[in-house]
């Protein structure tokens, strides 16, 4: 049970949603954008999220779009992880998202919701980082389209009242060889010890991580090291971990030392699968 009452709004347009947020915010309702609702429900019931108004984005056609427009793949933020997986339009994204929670939950969890999750994993962002995608963000101040590398810094940097409408990805990336691997502590359904997503482009292998540090990331320094094929693969892996932007985490899923062991195995498997030895 959610121990507080809240109002529910279902705007039909992006502008209406942003205007609603602004008004409800001014009224002190602490509004939240709502899409799959899995986190609002599960965190709300233990009183760690409070709101007096939710603004459902699922009725906004832009947020439900899945289209190719002049060579760009446009994906709405309110598409569910199950829809992304089943559609096969962007297999790297679909499969990375399919590692989140369980199928029943993924039927509710949305693309945008996962990227903006309160939890540290946000695995659906990894394919966006790998493909230099752009994010269409809207809010009371209007709309903007920003490269993911600028918009995402551990988490998506959103202004007050802003929300993700769509992501835009160059369609050619959807056909490149990729690997996505998630390793968990023990159970088939859990948060990751390590999630690695990688892509082979003509310039080299790109790689992004979740569950390893306290935030998901892609690092140019790590990729440069991994692509130095004159060095033995295991040395490249060892040295690239030293270049990570933050320490490897220790938590109830695993210690940093064990995570690093698993990470190295997954990186090696990834590099080999993409012909990066």
């Amino acid at each position, binding site marked *: 049970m959610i121990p507080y009452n809240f109002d529910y709004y279902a705007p039909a347009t992006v502008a209406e949603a942003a205007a609603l947020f602004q008004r409800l915010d001014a009224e002190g309702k602490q509004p939240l954008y709502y899409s799959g609702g899995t986190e609002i429900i599960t965190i709300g019931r233990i009183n760690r999220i409070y709101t007096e108004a939710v603004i459902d984005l699922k009725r906004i056609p832009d947020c439900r779009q899945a289209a190719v427009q002049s060579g760009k793949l446009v994906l709405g933020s309110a598409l569910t992880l199950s829809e992304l997986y089943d559609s096969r339009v962007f297999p790297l994204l679909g499969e990375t998202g399919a590692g989140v929670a369980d199928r029943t939950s993924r039927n509710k969890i949305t693309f945008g919701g996962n990227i903006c999750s309160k939890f540290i994993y946000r695995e659906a962002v990894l394919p966006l980082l790998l493909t230099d995608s752009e994010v269409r963000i809207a809010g009371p101040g209007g709309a903007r389209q920003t490269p993911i590398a600028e918009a995402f810094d551990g988490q998506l940097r959103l202004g007050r009242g802003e929300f993700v409408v769509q992501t835009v990805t160059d369609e050619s990336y959807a056909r490149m060889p990729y690997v996505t691997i998630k*390793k968990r*502590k*023990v*159970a088939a359904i859990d948060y990751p010890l390590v999630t690695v997503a990688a892509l082979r482009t003509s310039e080299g292998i790109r790689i992004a991580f979740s569950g390893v540090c306290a935030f998901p990331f892609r690092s140019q320094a790590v990729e440069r090291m991994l692509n130095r094929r004159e060095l033995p693969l295991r040395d490249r892996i060892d040295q690239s971990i030293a270049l990570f932007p933050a320490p490897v985490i220790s938590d109830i899923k695993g210690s940093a030392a*064990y995570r690093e062991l698993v990470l190295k*195995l997954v990186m090696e498997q990834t590099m080999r699968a993409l012909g990066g030895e």
Partner: protein
Amino acid sequence: MDAHTIRAKGIGCFWKNSSIDPDGSSGAIVSFNQDGSLNLETGVVEIGTGTKTILAQILAERMRMSPDHIHVKFKISTDITPEHWKTVASRGTFLAGRAVLKAADDAIRQLLDIAACVLRADPVDLELGHGYVYARADPSVRIAVKDICYGYKYPNGNSIGGQIIGRGHYIQRRMNYTNPETGEGTPGPEWNVGAQAVEIELDTRDYSYKLLKAISVNDAGKVLNPKAAKGQVMGAMSMGLSFANRETFMFSGEGAIYNASLRDYNVIRYGENPEYVVEFIESPCLDGPYGARALGEHGLIAMPAALAAALSRAAGVQLNRLPLFPETIWRAKMGEPQP
């Protein structure tokens, strides 16, 4: 298997007695409907174990009738339903089963008494079966249960008897408290045994492993319902493996629980289970209903030991600590002490 995959088997054995309050008792009421069908009421709470089905089978067997004509009362009213000590300790079938047999015998005695009058026969010459009370030596001398279970009316209107209500109870014989110093005592009537085995496949790179096959052979005394017995043991095996392989609370230094929700407290799900094999041997328990022994919890007990034995063998290190997370095995392999 290959350079980094090892298959191994482990085996564990168990013995268990159900220690309950020495005066823990169970009661049962068997009443009749006008069509000769029966109502069965006991205080056993049906929590998915199928005990109430088995009690209906026990009653049908004793009454020599089809269980289809027994209405099992599932709802329990703590005001008037006969007491069943607790639906715990693998004691449902044993305690309530014996109470049902006694209630059935009480009802049969009443049926034979009234039938003896109607048939002008000695009750010891009569038998109950297939909806009739009949003379053992001449079954054509008979009266239908439905014509006597609410009393018998003679053609001239004279009537005898009334609704038949059988009652029964059971309490375990000569139980006593165990001596806290020596452990001596009689906590329960029967010791039940079994052997269990697990086969796993260990990846020696990260010590992750697959549960391939799990086997349990229990002494059931007498299997009263093969599918229910198999389901009980299989479910318990799953719980035992889940307990051995992942279930635990994790505490901070101050004792706060880190994984207080099912988000982080994992249990084995469908698809993660090994192939289960469940077999029984039958050495009857003379006190149990039709020889049956306790079954509910026993399938759990040796699973952790069997899994730990298999993983110890595969990893080449003695594993004495649950749960057996891959990281736990890795740490043991690295020579860390297991507290």
